[in-house]
């Protein structure tokens, strides 16, 4: 063993906690080691000298009364009323102690950090919002909007909300010549001549009471009855506040309106109609309201795109000869393209190509086959890219 090992044993020896073997080893070691002998001597002297220090002896009277003082205090404290105990506890709070100071400091620091953090966060939030808006405006410049698919997906996502806010309410209505004619002249229906207006459902609409902005700008007119125009679907897709509807005037005086039954803006071809004037347009494919997709509109939600794909696919399965076939394939291609740009999953394009190939195989007319083929080529080009 080394001298350092004996340092501890020397302490054990001084405290009478040494065992027989350690004792033998120590004796043997000390006989040949001056360092450890000196160490033991010094520690022993320290112990002896320390024990020699004396404290003053209190007087005998002190000891005679000490225990009685303690018991008196115990009795006194027992009798202390509750309010006095509360008072002394309260007073003790204000007695200085380092521990209390440390705790108070810690709590104050936490509060300070929290308050400063909140203030900074609020300031930064406003600042970030301003920067974000500026970037949005830049990002939404015409050049970017022409090729939105070139933007990173994250940017596209972040632009979505802002872009929708900007586009939807203020998009200028460009009514077709036919629509203009309808507005001016009204439209003939089996029920008779009805004046048809286009309304804009406002945000305060409820299920039973739809408010429509119609007639003069800013005028809100209540519609008394529940529409049967597939508004439930519109509500589900979350597009109610932005959905354009066609209303049938009942009474000018009361200014109450009833939603007109199916009144396509353009003449419906068979069982499909195109609805909507401002901002967002819908096809009514069978009983489904299906969003009209624009190739540049990268802000459409994934669910909406999936619904477009499902609706058109089902229609073609049931009615392969429909006159809307070219429009439908075009919409399918756009839906797959937008879905791919949003999710970045190549499998989406693969699925789209396979689906279109199926329809191509089942198509009879060469014109339709060629049309589908061109869509497939576009998707394949995108996939390779």
């Amino acid at each position, binding site marked *: 063993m080394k001298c350092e090992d004996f340092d501890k044993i020397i302490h054990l020896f001084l405290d009478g906690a040494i065992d027989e073997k350690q004792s033998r080893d120590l004796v043997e070691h000390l006989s040949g080691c001056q360092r450890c002998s000196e160490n033991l001597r010094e520690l022993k002297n320290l112990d002896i000298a320390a024990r*020699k220090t004396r404290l003053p002896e209190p007087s005998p009277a002190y000891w005679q009364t000490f225990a009685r003082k*303690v018991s008196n205090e*115990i009795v006194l404290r027992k009798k202390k009323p509750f309010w006095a105990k509360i008072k002394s506890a309260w007073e003790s709070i204000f007695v200085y102690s380092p521990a209390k100071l440390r705790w108070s400091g810690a709590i104050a620091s936490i509060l300070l950090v929290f308050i400063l953090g909140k203030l900074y966060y609020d300031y930064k939030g406003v600042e970030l919002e301003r920067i974000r808006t500026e970037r949005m405006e830049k990002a939404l410049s015409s050049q970017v909007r022409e090729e939105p698919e070139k933007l990173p997906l994250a940017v596209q996502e972040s632009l979505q909300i802002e872009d929708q806010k900007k586009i939807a309410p203020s998009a200028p209505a460009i009514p077709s010549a036919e629509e203009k004619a309808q507005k001016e002249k009204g439209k003939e229906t089996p029920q008779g001549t009805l004046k048809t207006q286009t309304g804009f459902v406002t945000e305060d609409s409820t299920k039973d009471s739809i408010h429509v902005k119609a007639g003069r700008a800013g005028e809100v007119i209540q519609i008394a009855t529940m529409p049967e125009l597939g508004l439930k679907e519109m509500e589900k897709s979350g597009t109610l506040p932005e959905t354009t509807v066609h209303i049938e005037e009942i009474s000018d005086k009361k200014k109450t309106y009833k939603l007109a039954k199916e009144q396509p803006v353009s003449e419906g071809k068979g069982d499909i109609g195109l609805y909507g004037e401002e901002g967002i347009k819908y096809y009514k494919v069978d009983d489904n309201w299906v969003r009209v997709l624009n190739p540049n509109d990268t802000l459409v939600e994934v669910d909406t795109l999936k619904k477009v794909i499902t609706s058109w696919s089902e229609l073609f399965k049931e009615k392969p000869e429909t006159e809307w076939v070219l429009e439908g394939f075009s919409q399918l291609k756009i839906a797959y393209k937008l879905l791919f740009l949003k999710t970045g999953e190549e499998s989406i394009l693969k699925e789209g190509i396979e689906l279109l190939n199926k329809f191509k195989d089942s198509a009879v007319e060469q014109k339709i086959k060629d049309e589908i083929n061109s869509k497939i080529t576009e998707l394949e080009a995108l996939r390779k890219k």
Partner: protein
Amino acid sequence: MAEKEFKAQNAETEDKLIAKAKRGDVYSFERLVEKYQKKIYYLALRMTKSHDAADDLAQESFIKAFYSLKSFKEGYSFSAWVYRICMNLTINYLKRQKFTLPESQLKEGSLESLSDTVKADSINHLAKKELMEKIEQEIESLPVEFKSTFILRTYENLSYEEIAQALKISRGTVMSRLFRARERLKKNLKGYL
């Protein structure tokens, strides 16, 4: 044999006193105080170097012990339990007084009562007064954890286990603190020992 019987009888008496005190008998508790008052007072005095503080701390230790008697488990050492209470109160007191420790009023007194003969041969040549002053000074300057361990071992003669119980620390920690306290004192008293 007789000593063992006396100790057993004494312990039995102490247990009875504790049992009575637990039931609220202040008089029985007073007997216990009489038995341990000096040990507790001197422990506090060693730690604080102030009679007033030691008096307060010793009294407070016993009062706290009385009100905490319900938590005292039979079979444990009553003295070690009160040591622990006293040591906790004293350590808290010293921490509060850390920056305002008065110059010891006891130094003079303790030196006056110093034994005239320091038996260790190697320190005979030193001025005893100077040595004692220096030792008291160094003990007082020890960190409170080292000081409490050193005092319980050197002046109260407690074993490692008893110190561990009184300070609620492990035996290893007791040994380590004692080792470091002594080594520090030895280093600072180099030339005196």
